[in-house]
């Protein structure tokens, strides 16, 4: 019962996997497919990890999808100018970090609600991306070495999975083990108290937003590498899904707090459902209905471990 309450959402994930595996032992329940899911969830999870940082502060960054799209378009456009791989990657990541810093600055310095600040700034980024790409899909001039960053396997593990693993470990350590992480939780828990005990509230907020955008930028690069092309709205699908992962994760561990392990569970739930339903051949409209229903069940399960109220 305690287990159910504490780890309900995690159990839900396990349960979903088991059910799918029973329903489809030879397609879903294979090691190859489970490994494949980790690759399918990788980019979403990376974006969601960024969103987690900002959510720990109690804020939203709605520009994540714009930054993903930006990073993709910017990278292909920069390759077109003849720049080398390291330079392109560095420029794209730095520009993403910068965009995040601007959002963070608006929120931290002027106390603009992050929802509206990042939505508006994301629109600006979107316009900019559109301008750079002229609205077209860009795909020529991508060096093969770049594409390899987003596909293939190393030691039997898909490359995107490795990226995710690296990012997850680093940011888990950052949030859970460092003073910076502790400060973010404190700021999110009580901004006024954080300010009064002398925490660098504004600076930390700017850094968190910058890191969030940086991770979106990384995801944009990997997406472009994976697809071999970049589309000016290619990141559009990540916004709601990333926050869905974070919120699902909030129901998974420590009462209601965003956390990296939680977000991973959230992203995994989303990825597993979509993989499983497709493999089972569930018709499209039913997939939507079932996706919604399974997510609801996953967040409700923990309730049944509750005593009284």
């Amino acid at each position: 019962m305690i287990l159910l309450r504490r780890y309900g959402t995690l159990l839900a994930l396990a349960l979903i996997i088991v059910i799918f595996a029973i329903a489809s032992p030879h397609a879903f329940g294979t090691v190859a497919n489970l490994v494949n899911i980790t690759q399918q969830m990788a980019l979403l999870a990376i974006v969601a990890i960024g969103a987690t940082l900002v959510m720990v502060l109690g804020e939203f960054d709605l520009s994540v999808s714009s930054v993903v799209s930006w990073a993709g378009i910017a990278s292909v456009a920069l390759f077109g100018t003849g720049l080398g791989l390291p330079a392109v990657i560095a420029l794209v990541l730095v520009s993403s970090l910068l965009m995040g810093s601007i959002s963070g600055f608006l929120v931290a310095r002027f106390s603009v609600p992050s929802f509206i600040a990042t939505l508006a700034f994301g629109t600006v980024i979107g316009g900019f991306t559109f301008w750079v790409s002229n609205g077209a899909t860009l795909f020529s001039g991508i060096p093969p070495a770049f594409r390899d960053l987003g596909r293939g396997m190393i030691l039997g593990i898909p490359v995107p999975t490795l990226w995710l693993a690296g990012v997850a470990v680093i940011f888990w350590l950052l949030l859970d083990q460092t003073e910076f992480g502790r400060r973010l939780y404190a700021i999110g828990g009580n901004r006024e108290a954080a300010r009064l005990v002398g925490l660098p509230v504004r600076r930390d907020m700017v850094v968190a937003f910058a890191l969030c955008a940086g991770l979106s930028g990384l995801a944009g690069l990997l997406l472009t590498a994976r697809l071999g092309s970049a589309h000016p709205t290619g990141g559009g699908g990540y916004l709601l899904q990333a926050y869905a992962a974070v919120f699902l994760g909030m129901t998974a561990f420590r009462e209601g707090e965003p956390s990296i392990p939680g977000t991973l569970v959230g992203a995994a739930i989303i990825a597993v459902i979509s993989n499983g339903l497709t493999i089972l051949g569930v018709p499209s409209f039913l997939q939507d209905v079932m996706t919604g229903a399974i997510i609801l069940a996953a967040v409700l399960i923990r309730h049944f471990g509750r005593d009284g109220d």
Partner: protein
Amino acid sequence: MTEASGTGPFLALSGLIRHFGATKALDGADLVIEAGSVHALVGENGAGKSTLIKTLSGLYQPGGGSIRLDGADIAIDGPKAAEALGFRFIHQELNLVPHFDAVGNAWIGRRHPRRGPFLDHRAMRRRVAEIAARIAPDLPLDRPAIRLTPGQRQMAEIVRALIEPARLVVMDEPTSSLSEGEAERLHKVVRRLAEEGTAVLFISHRLDEVLELCGSYTVLRNGRTVGAGPIAGIDRAGLVALMSGGASDHAAVDPMRDRSAPPAGRSERPGALFSADLAFGPANARFTLEARPGEIIGLYGLVGSGRSSLLKILWGASVARGTITIAGRKLVGGPADRIRKGIAYVPEDRRREGFAATLSIEDNLALAHLADFRAVAAVPISSRGKIRQFAAGVGARLRLVAARLDRSPMTLSGGNQQKLVFGRWLGRTIRVLLVDEPTRGVDVGAKAEIHAEMRRIAAESASVIMATSDIEELLALSDRVLVLQTGRLIAELGGTTLTRSAVVAAAFGHAPSPSGPAVPRPSEEFIA
């Protein structure tokens, strides 16, 4: 308006049980209140007083025991039910809607005066103003709660509890942030309620107040009732003994200090360690303050007089024109810079300003100086062990009652939360200590510990600047007292001029103290 039925006392709780995990917050508590009486509920921090109140208000369901009203067993299944029984509550942690003013807050959950389907704002305000005139004439009725001081919020809560007739009014430490005269006004209202037949259950750690105001008492210890009876049959020492289980070894019974001897650590060096020269208050009047090493300066005034605002400025958390210096060096940055220079601050409103509920107790304790807990000095990663060790030390020194230090501060009783907020500075070298209501809601024993800590810090040649509404505390600790009125320094009292009556008189604005109103002449700097 209350008819006492012949079958028993107005309200009798017996054998109440409420556990939080392993913590037995209530473990067989009894309480009997007669109609028209003022009944005191006392006990150390964490004894279970607030839990008992919350059970009575229907917020918690008891795990055992019974509640009898007018001799009949009842169950209170929610706050609505308690309200319907004519019970009104002022909870320890204030619960106002931040964006509503006092009028709006007073009516939530009540049947609003209406005109047709719509609210009658005039009638709403009229009723609230009537009540406020009796107990809190200075309370700004149109200011959102979020911009009221804790004292004002406390008054707004009291007003809220009284706008409709009641059979029982429960007050959980209502005076902990009120100053002398304001508490007095509340006492008058309480007495009048009792005369009208309303029962009042009054919780306070100010034992003198309890002895003076209440007619009967109940003492809780570790969730059990360990004593009850008429106040006439007990004295302060008796209460303390019951509360602490007789093992009271600390000199808490009378914290008043002998004022004839100079304070222990008072250094004879003439210079000021900490000074401020500011434009302050609504009038932007010049305000100067100089604190010498080893000195404890008390700030006193009515609710809203500006004590807390002043401390926030000194702490660098809000801005003002003027200069603040430590050891002659001008302070420029915010709180972080102050911490580096050896200044410490304890805010007045623990819930809103003191801790993050999402962090554990120990993490909250470590928050102000995280760098001290690194395993490796250059790597910003905390050593869990060091934090634990620090937290355990603070816990022991302030007798923090906590089931586990790795849980949220929300699992602490009010007084223990206060210890957390004060305790984070223990064990550090402090040059200037700024404290705002350092012992709000803290029981006598722990209060003595905190006072001892403050004296010790002063004795180590630090300056302590303390705002407090507790006049006993003010007189017990201060070498000098500055009295404020709406942001103006109205009197400076020290040595022989520092008496209870002089302080109260100054705060209420009559009879300038012998040293005269210490409002200095304005300098050019502030004309513009």
